[in-house]
């Protein structure tokens, strides 16, 4: 009995300790890499492809990824401490330049990993490429680009330049001067749509974006997209941090349509899911319509 008691006590102590460590694990491991989330994702994908890692591609540098990195470091004569630094990243094919931009390793394109990723997605959707979408310009992507260039009468060298990108429908501004700006409003609105309505029909996603914009123009609410979205208690997606998820193409399309004037709610200021909403005052607002699970009110 006493042995069993002792065993359970030790196990309990270990469980408490490790659960605490688990909850703070991000803090511990954050110092073990200089790579950002998207670079970690590329590392995971590559280590998977090369047989050093069999976990999911999450962008999170945890124990499993670290173990994969150690295996890689041992194989390549690097210090096998699991520290994902500049040397290891370079060996994996990720150039960590001082600009913190993950540039491709082949030199076959002047663009960064974001543009390469968008090109890969488009080539995948259009049937020229079968993945994976990594943001790295490797041989598979080059071959897909060559196929695309051949089809469209472009110089089929596999060089991903402005002409090919234009044919792919990817807009890359020629200049970074005064006439260029990041479309931050669209990004933020798309994130809000994705976080609040990603399971909804497309019109419901447009409607959620339109509600944000209707608030911007309404006297009873703040006057910019960011002020409306980050107004305290306005959107649950901000409170539960889902606003920081990466939006999909549908969310971007819906946000863009709303910015272009689409509004299936005709000026609504509120929406709620009647199955889960608890705010009594919201139920007293006049209802205009219901799209998917959301009721839209004004």
């Amino acid at each position, binding site marked *: 009995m006493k042995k069993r008691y002792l065993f359970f006590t030790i196990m309990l102590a270990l469980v*408490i300790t490790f659960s605490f460590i688990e909850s703070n694990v991000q803090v511990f491991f954050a110092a073990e890499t200089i790579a950002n989330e998207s670079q970690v994702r590329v590392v995971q994908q590559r280590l998977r492809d090369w047989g050093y890692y069999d976990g999911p591609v999450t962008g999170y540098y945890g124990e499993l990824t670290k173990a994969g990195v150690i295996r890689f470091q041992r194989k390549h004569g690097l210090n096998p401490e699991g520290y994902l630094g500049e040397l290891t990243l370079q060996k994996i094919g990720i150039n960590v330049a001082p600009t913190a931009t993950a540039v491709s390793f082949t030199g076959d394109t002047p663009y960064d990993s974001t543009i390469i990723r968008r090109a890969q997605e488009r080539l995948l959707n259009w*049937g020229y490429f079968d993945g994976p979408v990594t943001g790295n310009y490797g041989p598979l992507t080059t071959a897909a680009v060559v196929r695309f260039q051949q089809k469209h009468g472009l110089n089929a060298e596999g060089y991903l330049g402005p002409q090919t990108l234009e044919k792919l429908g990817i807009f890359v501004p020629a200049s970074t001067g005064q006439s260029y700006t990041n479309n931050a409003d669209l990004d933020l609105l798309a994130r809000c749509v994705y976080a609040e309505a990603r399971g909804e029909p497309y019109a419901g996603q447009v409607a959620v974006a339109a509600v944000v914009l209707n608030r911007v*123009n309404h006297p009873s609410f*703040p006057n910019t997209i960011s002020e409306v979205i980050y107004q305290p208690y306005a959107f649950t997606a901000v409170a539960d941090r889902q606003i920081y998820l990466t939006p999909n193409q549908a969310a971007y399309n819906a946000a863009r349509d709303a910015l*272009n*004037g689409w509004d*299936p709610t005709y000026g609504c200021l509120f929406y709620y899911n009647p199955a889960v909403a608890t705010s009594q005052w919201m139920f007293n607002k006049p209802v205009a319509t219901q799209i998917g699970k959301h009721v839209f009110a004004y």
Partner: protein
Amino acid sequence: MKKSRAISKEQYRKINSYLIITIGVLVGACIFLGIMLILTNQVATSNATALEASYQKSYYNLVENINNAETEMSKVLLTDDDKYVGELLTKVSKNTHNAQNNLSLLPISINGIEESIKFINQLGGYCETLSKKITDNKSITPQEKETLQQLYNSLLDMKISLNKISNTMNNKYSILENSLNLEKDYNDFTLQLQAIHTNDVEYPTMIYDGPFADSQITQEIKALKNSTTVIDEERARELIAKLFDVDGEITYMGDTVHNFETFDFTFKTKSGNENFAQISKTEGHLITLAGQEQDREPAYDINEVMTRARSFIAKNGVGEVEVVWHDIIASNAYFNFAPIKNGVILYPDLIKVKCSLATSEILGYEARSYFINHIERTIPAFTISQAQAQTKIKSAYDIIGVRKVLAPIEFQEVLCYEFECFYDDTTYYIYVNGVTGSVVNILKVIQTNDGSKIM
């Protein structure tokens, strides 16, 4: 008995050593947990302190903005010098804008002080509108002076209430802590701040055409308001069948009852796209279509889909419209159509169409602006020539094109010459009033990571 005692001693020693190990592990775990708790608590306290400081800053900025707005407004009432009044009104407007910004950063339930935000925004909008009126060499009317006096009274009440709350703040009041105490939909801080509009503050009605005006919220549907033709759900369904290559059922989803009253449907097209369409109950027009398709490779050029979009609009019975703008984003083409009367493009009556470059199918349609604004207009004559208007454009600009337009500028329809210009690698649209000859708006085409946008 001896043997039994010897075994007991052995067991006793073992238990002792187990106990020592257990206590050691537990003590170690406790020390570790304690350290972690202290560290975590330090981080949480530090975050809470930073957040409280941010809230306090917003609150005191809000007080300062309202105090400043009240001071400037009091000066407005003491002078009839229009130029100086215009300057003061601009300052009031700036302060109300900042006040609204600070108010929106505070942890207030959004239904808690809607009226106060509305008052602050409309006060700013009203002052901005009057200031622009003065810039256009028009005087403030006695009625507007009267409204300004009423607005000042309300602003003064708000200032007094806010300063009373500040006394509470001085008594170690924590906005963060009080924002966490929830009372139904409100938190304690919301209840505290509600005093700024419940203490006998009455907000006057501001009748104006400008930012945040009530007239901008309750838009009447000019194109349909005199029509008595009302259709039923079946007729609306027939219209969808006529407009689209429907595959399978057209599903009725319910009605929308707001500025527009529509029958809402979903349906699939033969290309496999899911669409949502709204047909007006009055006269049976397609008002909104929201659909999307999977990302596919373009197979049509812009002119082919433009023809398709044009014939689609013709089928929807909205009269003659022309393409006045188009853009391609990913594999979709966007078109803006507008009526053209006497050679003048009527921008307020825009219809927007989104087409697939992969299938040429209509994926989106937005005719709200058209039906809200469209009336039979008498287009006034241009009193200045294009050459005269062109003198307002700096010679450094390359003029690419000129069009006559009726443009919605500052909440009014203004007859303009629209000059498309190119300067320093950037395209601009410059609008010159066709009657007064003054420049009324300049739009800059900004290149973004998602195509171009006009600002």
